[in-house]
């Protein structure tokens, strides 16, 4: 496969689908009518210059402005496309979105008015009360920010910005004070690996309840990044440190990029992180600051444009991400390959130059652990009460039935029968026996569905 690289003024590479031999690809994931969620890069500009930044356009100043179309036109078109395609949730990102947020208020209000949920990824350095008020009015309740260390000097060094630590911490405190749910993501390289627990403890003391540590992926245009990048042993150390954070500090923990499942070589790691898999082009995509549409933010391949063809055509063009095309040869015999696809494809590309190459963190010698599944068992004796669907639950029709969506991590594909049951009962209480009758299954079986809906907080 040809190495993809900056090929036009946007810095991203357009995919020519006439070159593809899709007949040899096997579908491994159903095609949805549109993504469930999208990342929207409001700008390529940033007030930090983190050494690990994955934005492939960051090192080329010429690529920092969208060509051909005004920012306002692109923004309006992007919002329109998100609404038309019934995308459930959009995450505002960048660059640093707070640098330009005020230019997007009209479009964001349109999204809110049409029921599109909005989240925000920001370093919070520019956060203030006015932003807080506006974001609340837009329905934003959740913010993901980034802090690289509890050591201010090290953080500023990694952010390439003196004073960044002080501004970020002030932003976190203010956001918490304003009632936002703030998650802190720590991007981990060799230099801050020893401070994972310390950073978690620091943000816990600020009042944060969710902490993620994610190993820095090799940025596409970076040189000598191996000097910073974790090796597999260090990566496992980081994951185990997250488990310590969960145990000892009581924080909700996560890692934000799906690891190859074979690196999770203990039952504990598999249980904690084995549920993650790449969602690029399957349930999500990224709309770039230039209007080009990519499978994920770390990927430089574009499959269409907001301005030409729109989100729907780009999503169709991404079909290859729903096939086995990018599974590395060395992973194809693995029983979990369709779920794992060999780990992050953007990282494999950044290091090896091809999307179907091996991820450096995959292993052919590890034992695979399956995840322990925990779903509280519903007993008919304790299920005499009535249930009510969450008023925040949204629905979108698909060819197999539809999607019930509560949040980016809480959604469920359902068949026509359950979709119909939801649509006819969404505003009135029901018994589990009503569900069983509608689903034409036994009451005992219906309790499985009840338990799953409960686990996803979709019924109360």
């Amino acid at each position, binding site marked *: 496969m040809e190495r993809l690289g900056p090929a036009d003024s946007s810095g991203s590479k357009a995919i020519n689908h006439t070159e593809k031999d899709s007949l040899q690809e*096997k579908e491994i994931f159903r095609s949805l009518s549109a993504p469930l969620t999208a990342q929207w890069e409001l700008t390529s500009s940033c007030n930090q210059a983190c050494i690990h930044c994955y934005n492939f356009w960051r090192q080329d100043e010429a690529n920092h402005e969208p060509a051909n179309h005004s920012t306002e036109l692109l923004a309006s078109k992007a919002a329109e496309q998100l609404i038309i395609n019934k995308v459930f949730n959009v995450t505002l990102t960048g660059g640093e979105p707070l640098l330009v947020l005020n230019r997007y208020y009209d479009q964001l209000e349109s999204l809110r008015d049409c029921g599109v949920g909005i989240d925000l990824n920001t370093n919070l350095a520019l956060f203030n009360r006015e932003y807080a008020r506006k974001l609340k009015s837009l329905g934003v309740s959740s913010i993901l920010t980034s802090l690289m260390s509890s050591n201010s000097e090290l953080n500023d060094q990694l952010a390439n910005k003196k004073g960044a630590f002080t501004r970020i911490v002030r932003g976190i405190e203010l956001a918490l004070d304003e009632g936002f749910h703030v998650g802190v993501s720590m991007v981990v390289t060799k230099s801050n690996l020893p401070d994972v627990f310390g950073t978690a403890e620091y943000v816990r003391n600020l009042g944060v309840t969710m902490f993620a540590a994610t190993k820095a992926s090799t940025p596409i245009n970076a040189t000598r990044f191996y000097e910073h990048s974790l090796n597999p042993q260090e990566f496992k150390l980081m994951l185990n440190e997250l488990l310590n954070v969960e145990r000892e500090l009581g924080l909700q923990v996560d890692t934000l990029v799906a690891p190859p499942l074979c690196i999770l070589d203990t039952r504990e790691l598999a249980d904690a992180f084995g549920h993650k898999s790449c969602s690029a082009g399957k349930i999500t995509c990224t709309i770039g600051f230039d209007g080009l549409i990519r499978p994920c933010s770390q990927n430089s391949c574009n499959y269409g444009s907001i301005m030409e063809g729109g989100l729907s055509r780009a999503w169709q063009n991404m079909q290859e991400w729903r096939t086995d095309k990018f599974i590395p040869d060395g992973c194809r015999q693995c029983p979990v390959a369709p779920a794992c696809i060999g780990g992050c494809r953007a990282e494999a590309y950044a290091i090896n130059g091809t999307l179907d190459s091996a991820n450096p963190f995959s292993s052919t010698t590890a034992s695979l652990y399956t995840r322990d*599944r925990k779903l509280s068992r519903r007993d008919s004796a304790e299920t005499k009460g009535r249930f009510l669907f969450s008023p925040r639950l949204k629905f979108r029709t698909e060819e197999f039935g539809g999607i019930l969506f509560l949040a980016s991590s809480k959604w469920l594909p359902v068949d026509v029968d359950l979709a119909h049951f939801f649509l006819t009962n969404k505003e009135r209480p029901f018994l589990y026996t009503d569900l069983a009758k509608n689903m034409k299954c036994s009451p005992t079986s219906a*309790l499985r569905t009840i338990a799953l809906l409960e686990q996803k907080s979709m019924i109360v």
Partner: protein
Amino acid sequence: MERKTERILLAPGVVSLRVGELKEQKLRAPGDSSDGGCFRGCFDCTYDVECERAPDPIKKLEQKSRRIVGQKA
């Protein structure tokens, strides 16, 4: 592209988005074995479904994994 699995239900009404190489079958809740059961192994399952049939698929998966590793070695 051939789609071998049209409908996989993990609990009544719930659909899997993963397309596997199973015979087409409509799965009922684990334990409700009249329609078959889940043989896909937990990694193929998007959901946190506790599966009463899990011990066998897990064992198979781990055995298969070891066998693959052995072959490579």
